[in-house]
């Protein structure tokens, strides 16, 4: 096998005529695509067995760049379409690219019910804290105090923590990482694709054009540093909450937790469904 490199990924996975991508200078969505394709390459999967599904938004342009089957669907309904794909052919691997506005706001109900049923799909959520494509409006994930087009004096709404939500409803795999540390997201995406059941991976990506500019976070390098300094590993967070001093606790509580939140085994929806069909065919009740 050839050694894994950007050149190999470019030849094997990308539609050359679509590149260079439309994303702004310094945007992290290209990184998300990079990590996903590396995970697929390391798992040695065939692109004919994978379907990429996306909704509307910056992140949802990603399936167009990959030389595989993709669905660019209506706003917020990416997970609903992915469930449909899985229902028709359970042998396909379904990977959903979705943004924070797409997944948390308009598609919130599809998200929680797909987790409740435990459909075997991998959701990669690109969280840039803002509605980037439409000009930087307030999203459900925008942190308190942040400025956006629709909150020019600072946000007063508490943000939505989708990882905690997914964990509480019982998603088998929940993880959150930033794009600035590349090795952990690749490992998590690999684990998520292999997992039988709903895998949710949230990636914090910098948005220098909308979020960084409005919040005066500086240039791209400063923004990446901001992500490094304002995130904390979940193990470290729990240790501080148990044994740390009051000052440490106060500092840690303001940071964004990253890490693997949950990794459990649960019965998958379509497996149970086909078991039911087999049972009824045999004449059981």
């Amino acid at each position, binding site marked *: 096998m050839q050694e894994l490199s950007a050149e190999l990924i*470019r030849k094997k996975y990308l539609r050359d005529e679509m*590149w*260079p991508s439309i994303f702004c200078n310094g945007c992290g969505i*290209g990184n998300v*695509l990079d990590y996903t394709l590396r995970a697929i390459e390391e798992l040695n999967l065939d692109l004919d067995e994978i379907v990429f599904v996306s909704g509307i938004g910056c992140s949802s342009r990603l399936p167009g760049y990959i030389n595989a089957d993709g669905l660019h669907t209506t706003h917020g309904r990416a997970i609903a379409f992915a469930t449909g794909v899985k229902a028709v052919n359970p042998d396909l691997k379904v990977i959903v690219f979705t943004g924070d506005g797409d997944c948390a706001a308009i598609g919130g109900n599809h998200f929680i019910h797909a987790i409740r049923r435990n459909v075997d799909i991998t959701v990669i959520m690109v969280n840039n804290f803002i509605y980037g494509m439409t000009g930087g409006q307030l999203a459900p994930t925008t942190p308190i105090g942040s400025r956006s087009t629709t909150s020019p004096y600072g946000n007063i709404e508490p943000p939505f923590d989708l990882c905690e939500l997914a964990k509480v409803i019982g998603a088998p795999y929940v993880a959150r990482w930033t794009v600035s*540390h590349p090795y952990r997201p690749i490992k998590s995406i690999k684990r998520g694709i292999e997992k039988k059941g709903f895998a949710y991976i949230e990636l914090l990506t910098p948005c220098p054009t909308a979020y960084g500019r409005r919040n005066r976070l500086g240039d*791209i390098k400063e923004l990446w540093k901001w992500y490094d300094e304002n995130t904390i590993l979940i193990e*470290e967070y729990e240790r501080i909450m148990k044994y740390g*001093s009051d000052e440490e606790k106060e500092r840690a509580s303001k940071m964004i937790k*990253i890490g693997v939140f949950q990794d459990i085994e649960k019965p998958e929806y379509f497996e149970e469904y086909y078991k039911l069909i087999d049972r009824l065919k045999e004449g059981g009740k």
Partner: protein
Amino acid sequence: MIIVNEDWCKGCGMCIERCPVKALEQSDKLNRRGVYPPRLKENNNCNYCRLCELICPDFAITVIPDENLLKKTVKPKLIPVRRVRA
């Protein structure tokens, strides 16, 4: 050796910033987009860790490792472990 696909580079400069041995610099030639793509310095300590290739969002850098690597290897920061100091 690194190969830079100059037309795909948008000039964010994260490869230059994050290189653990500071082996990259801006070149002096503009590309089609009007930015300066990265290049290897004349005397560099590149040990082919491939971090620049990995964090490039535009798939513009490819690292080709040298067969007879003699330089001392410096590993990049892999895991986001950091203590919170009060």
